[in-house]
């Protein structure tokens, strides 16, 4: 029984990490109706930029390598880079494509993916890096001792962070003027323009915030599996979470993440061995598909309005 809980808890915690990546998608989708394929690349870019600065800063400034000062300075610089990336994206990619079909914008973000991946590696090189956030990815001892269940300190930390992020973004969308404007833009670009919502600013803001979320996700995932190109694949983990939770719902990302995380782990452990394992790759999608058949807009997504 304790094994079951171990798997369950481990699953829930990794689910939160999926949610963190999913959140970036939700933000942009909600604010512009764009399915941002480049989110994974942004996670990679953010983490690589952070690590890159971490490595070069001591040389530039004489600060102690691996110290706190370097960490925060690198964080600020990486964040600034993400903001710049967001603003540039708006200027170069989105602005000329206002009011175009979603699939076109989707494709543009695919182009963006190549661009971002190329730029990241051209600047910082293709080497893989370790990333240490100072919180060990180890079992919490007292839980281990008392219940013989592994609960990682790091995962708990990451989950808390994700929870805070999700809660604040959810509030932001629902109750602020900018949040409302974001949702308006997603519904109808042109109408939003017509009442004077400055799409440019809005988009720059959202992409910057999504960049921030990508940075957080990048740091956490980077600390888990190293900073390397494969960070772009984190996006794949976020997709079933998204459809399960609903593209447009911030809380949906968290709930979806929890469900996907827990169930895929349980499935891999209990069902996997019967069919030869490795089912984690598709199980989340099939599960999400099952949910969708009951609720086609995801658990918390906005219903598609289809009226004649």
């Amino acid at each position, binding site marked *: 029984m304790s*094994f079951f809980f*171990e*798997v369950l808890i*481990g*699953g829930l915690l*990794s689910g939160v990490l999926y949610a963190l990546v999913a959140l970036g998608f939700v933000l942009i989708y909600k604010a512009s109706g764009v399915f941002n394929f480049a989110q994974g690349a942004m996670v990679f870019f953010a983490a690589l930029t952070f690590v890159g600065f971490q490595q070069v800063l001591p040389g530039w400034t004489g600060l102690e390598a691996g110290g706190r000062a370097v960490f925060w300075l690198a964080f600020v610089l990486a964040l600034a880079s993400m903001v710049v990336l967001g603003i540039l994206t708006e200027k170069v990619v989105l602005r000329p494509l206002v009011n175009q079909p979603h699939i076109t914008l989707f494709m543009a973000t695919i182009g963006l993916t190549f661009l971002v*991946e*190329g730029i990241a*590696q051209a600047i910082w*090189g*293709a*080497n*893989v*890096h*370790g*990333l*240490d956030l100072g919180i060990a*990815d*180890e*079992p919490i001892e007292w839980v281990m001792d008392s219940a013989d269940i*592994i609960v*990682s300190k*790091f995962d708990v930390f990451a989950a808390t962070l994700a929870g805070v992020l999700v809660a604040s973004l959810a509030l932001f969308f629902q109750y602020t003027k900018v949040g409302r404007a974001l949702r308006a833009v997603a519904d109808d670009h042109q109408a939003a323009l017509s009442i004077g919502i400055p799409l440019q600013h809005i988009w720059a803001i959202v992409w910057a915030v999504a960049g921030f979320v990508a940075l957080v996700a990048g740091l956490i*995932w980077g600390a*888990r*599996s*190293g*900073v*390397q*190109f*494969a*960070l*772009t*694949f*984190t996006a*794949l*983990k976020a997709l079933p979470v998204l459809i399960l939770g609903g593209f447009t719902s911030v809380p949906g990302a968290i709930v979806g993440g929890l469900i996907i995380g827990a169930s*895929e*782990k349980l499935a*891999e*452990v209990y069902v*996997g061995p019967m069919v*030869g*394992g*490795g*089912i*984690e*790759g*598709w199980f989340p999608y099939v599960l999400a598909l099952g949910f969708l058949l009951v609720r086609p807009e995801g658990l918390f997504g906005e219903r598609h309005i289809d009226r004649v």
Partner: protein
Amino acid sequence: QEQFIGLPSYRVGPFGSNGASLYGGWIDYMMMVNERDGGVNGVKLSWEECETEYNNARGVECYERLKNKGPTGNSTFQPLSTGITYSVLEKVAQDKIPMVTIGYGRTDAADGRVFPWVFPMISTYWTQASAIVNYIGQKEGGMAKLKGKKIGLLYHDSAYGKESHAIMDKLAEKHGFELTKVAVANPGNEQQAQWLQIRQLKPDYVVLWGWGVMNATALRTAAKTGYPREKVVGVWWSGSEEDTIPAGDAAKGYTAAGFNVAGTNYPVVQDIQKLVYAKNKGNMEDKSRVGSVLYNRGVVHGIITVEAIRKAQEKFGKGKPMTGEQMRWGFENLHIDNKRLAELGAAGFMPDLNITCADHEGAGKLKFQQWDGAKWTVVTDWIEGDRQLVRGMIEESAMAYAKEKGITPRDCTKEM
């Protein structure tokens, strides 16, 4: 006079860093040979890279593009991807370009009678598996001790990972250990479930058969679930700096197989530093990676290629560029004994090699290295695989292929 070598490399994509190190080492070695010796008997080495992104279709395109470059066409094709290997398997025979797949590719191609144009050199995946089991046996104090032990096989759920199944099953049967296979879905950046299963199972050893991000994640998750890294044994594609550095402290104590070793204190690597990097010429953007496992593996590629050219020139005319067909002969008659290795400045760097018409593998020996948190240290001498067992399986499989394709195997007694 130039000898052209086409390099289907990859420097972007999920395995870009691996490709960059390996092809870097290879190119640096060739530069060094050009600098130091003025090429091979006066024939300068020239090369061109073609980006494959580790993608089969692009690999084929590169193959075709490079095929006719240089005065004698491409002299060897080494794509560093099993997928691409398969995709050009038949083409190389038609175009008469020898394909050398060092430590990857199609295992049964080691049977040179059926696959004259393919050289899975040094060691195949099957030999590797048995060498790993031998290593574990050695650690336990004798193969007999393996009986009743539990070994977990954590493999990348793909053709590459599944390559281990048949042989591991055989070995489990032979040595009486209990084998549990645990699949990791591509790309492998989440392994919570697998390691909890392993934790439940409490195997004595876990063999890590991964590639790319899967490796670092495995080590991280092993640490997280409290599985000792000393008990994790990686294959050679899981045992490079690209795998351990991202894993950070979690990689400490981890051992992995290798048919070459890491380090810069081999004369051959030092020559490269002296003759290439000192002149600001090297291929590596990050010089600190010179001497890394994959870099040195690239040097091995260089050594083998250059020695084959040398060998071919001995037969077909010194100081002339070799054609693919001539190169094939060179590869097939490649004997790099320990003496030659010492001359090359690579004693202990790679195993001695003896390719024959029938045996395109030629060495079948591995060393094991352990990661101490900052670098790899060699912990064993060369350990041989169970070549007899493996050879039997290879021949069986190769004959089946020959039958399917209507190939009459060469009679090796008639060669030479």
